């Protein structure tokens, strides 16, 4: 576990509804190496990427529950007080979990509009986070909040610290969220689609901000998004998810140049190319995401896959295998190659 900051093994988070069980996350394996690295998690809506992120901090709301797996967090990595904690085994309301939340692993969310409380000033919400994890006075925390606001690029932070979230624009609110998350200097920042709700220009600004903050603070990041463009810019490694499983994980360059899993290939193919004009044919992935209550047998992607092996893919559920170049892929095509060696 030495150079892995976070390792998720076989995570299963299920939702028990009256109609049946929705296996939002069904056996996810992920690794985040080193420090200061960014892991992107991509996939279509409903593939379970957000639920995975929420599971890490035990923020999944009822009726969702982590039913299996481990989330191994390498606390104080590289120091003498190093210990590995299984986050999935912690009680969500325990002191230990609460000290990790915000203090060591922080999270920012998709909708800055509704993710901040309208009843309290921006400054209060940030100082609350600071004082939960550090023993400082109100004034000190207040000053730190102002500093953070300045760092995330909010003009006039001394004034803005006493503003209410509804007085700020969407982009500013997201900056406030980032400031709040980073105010306690966490080792890992989880960002759940931080730019989806923003307009394109603001998106670019926020991504740039997060990038530079990562340089400055040195924290690792897990970035959840469905936007492959963002992934290409910011991430070091990428994991592709489909129907609650990771189907491919590799470094970002290899993923874009040489996608292995048929789903990844189809995804990349489906992106329209700028400049090709209106005569360009769109290549959507055929079929649609299956109903969560009726998952396909065998490989979850096989109904939509043009590389499927008749007679095998619908019966055998592929395991996540490591290819020779160190990448991970979950597909029978690569299992066979492995086996045949």
């Amino acid at each position, binding site marked *: 576990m030495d150079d892995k900051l976070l390792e998720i093994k076989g995570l299963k988070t299920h*939702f028990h509804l*009256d*109609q049946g069980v929705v296996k939002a996350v069904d056996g996810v394996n992920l690794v985040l190496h080193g420090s200061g690295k960014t892991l992107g998690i991509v996939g*279509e809506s409903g593939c379970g990427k957000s639920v995975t992120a929420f599971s890490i901090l035990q923020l999944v709301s009822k009726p*969702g529950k982590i039913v299996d797996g481990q989330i191994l967090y390498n606390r104080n990595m590289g120091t003498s007080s190093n210990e590995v904690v299984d986050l999935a085994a912690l009680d969500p309301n325990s002191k230990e979990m609460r000290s990790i939340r915000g203090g060591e692993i922080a999270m920012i969310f998709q909708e800055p509009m509704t993710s901040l409380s309208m009843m309290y000033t921006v400054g209060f919400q940030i100082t609350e986070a600071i004082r939960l994890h550090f023993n400082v006075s109100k004034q000190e925390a207040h000053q730190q909040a102002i500093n953070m606001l300045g760092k995330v690029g909010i003009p006039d932070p001394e004034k803005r610290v006493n503003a209410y979230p509804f007085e700020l624009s969407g982009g500013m609110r997201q900056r406030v969220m980032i400031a709040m998350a980073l105010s306690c200097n966490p080792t890992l920042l989880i960002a759940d689609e931080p730019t989806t709700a923003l307009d394109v220009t603001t998106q670019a600004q926020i991504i740039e901000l997060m990038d530079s903050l990562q340089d400055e603070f040195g924290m690792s990041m897990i970035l959840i998004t*469905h936007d492959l463009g963002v992934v290409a810019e910011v991430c070091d490694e990428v994991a592709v998810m489909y129907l609650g499983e990771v189907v491919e994980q590799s470094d970002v360059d290899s993923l874009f140049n040489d996608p292995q899993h048929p789903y990844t290939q189809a995804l990349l193919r*489906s992106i329209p190319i700028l400049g090709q004009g209106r005569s360009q044919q769109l290549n*959507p992935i055929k079929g*649609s995401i299956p*109903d969560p209550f009726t998952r396909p047998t065998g490989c979850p992607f096989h109904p939509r896959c043009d590389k499927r092996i008749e007679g095998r893919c619908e019966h055998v559920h592929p395991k996540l295998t490591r290819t020779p170049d160190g990448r991970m892929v979950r597909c029978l095509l690569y299992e066979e190659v492995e086996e045949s060696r």
Partner: protein
Amino acid sequence: MSSVTQTPSMLLDEVDDVNEVFMASQRTLIWWRFRKHKLALISAIVIIAMYLMAIFADFVAPYTPNSYSVSHQYAPPMQVHFLLETEDGTRFIPHVFAYNFTRDPVSLKQTFEPDPDNVVTLQFFAPLEEPRMFLGMFEIHHSLFGASVESGERFHLLGADKLGRDVLSRVIYGAQLSLSIGLFGVFISLFLGILLGGLSGLYGGVVDNIIQRVIEFVVSLPSIPLWLGLSAALPPQWSVVQVYLFITIILSLRGWTGLARVVRGKFLALRSEEFVMAAQLDGSRQLRLIFRHMLPSFTSHIIASLTLAIPSMIIGETALSFLGLGLRPPAVSWGVLLQDAQAVNVVISAPWLLLPAVAVTIAVMAFNFFGDGLRDAADPYGR
């Protein structure tokens, strides 16, 4: 970039995005609605039963409301026994024991002792001592159940009041006025509410402003003093019918404001929908479509609000009559019946006089549950 999801499962016609399924609120919605249905169903049956009882009161009640018996003043409820020893052995014959009266010479209080030798058998379709008019239309000679003629005694399942009148019969008859006032009052509220709320929402601007001020004003009048004041102004010589109508109107004067607000809200939302503008540009055909889609959600909402307005009318009438400011004897409503239960010492010695209160409570509860269920079905995302 997300592809369109097809979601054939039952609950998912409300869901646009599969992700919503993961949110706890969906599950709670369905579960809650399911539970509500059972309660709402039971309540609906109770309500229908009560109204049937009211309509057929002439047939259902053992006695007419004013039939009295001096010897049975404040008689306690009689217990029904089912097994009777006859010459042919023990039979299933519902019966009660008639009362032996003894009057205490000092306090002049009458005490009632059930006399096991004086058996009063009960039967269904009991013949009446005197024929009654059914809803003033034709004569009937039997009631749903009653004492068999041979015994010649009276029976009081729920006891008797200070004039020896049967409480059970009076409660059954009381349902006629108590339940109908609610219904009529609510229709008046409905009319006013839709009219004013609709005008307010549809035209907006000045009209809306004026009507809103009026609503605020009406709401700010404290209701009880208003009702009391208006009722106290009732000339004592008015007939029962006139009083009845007057009370109905008074009660509905407060009720229409809530409905008007709901209607106005709906109309305002309608106006701001873009497709209204599109319809106006496109011609009337789309307008018709709009109303075809809008109206169902509209009417179910209104029905739910109406159902929830009825209980307050019932309670209002009961309260007014109880205080002597509403319906008056010889009219029989649950509130009038409760007038007899005003004095504490009376209530303590004859607690069965409070039974009309049970009827009120059951009716109100049934309407509340039913209305709640309706409202949930109409708008599962609302509160």
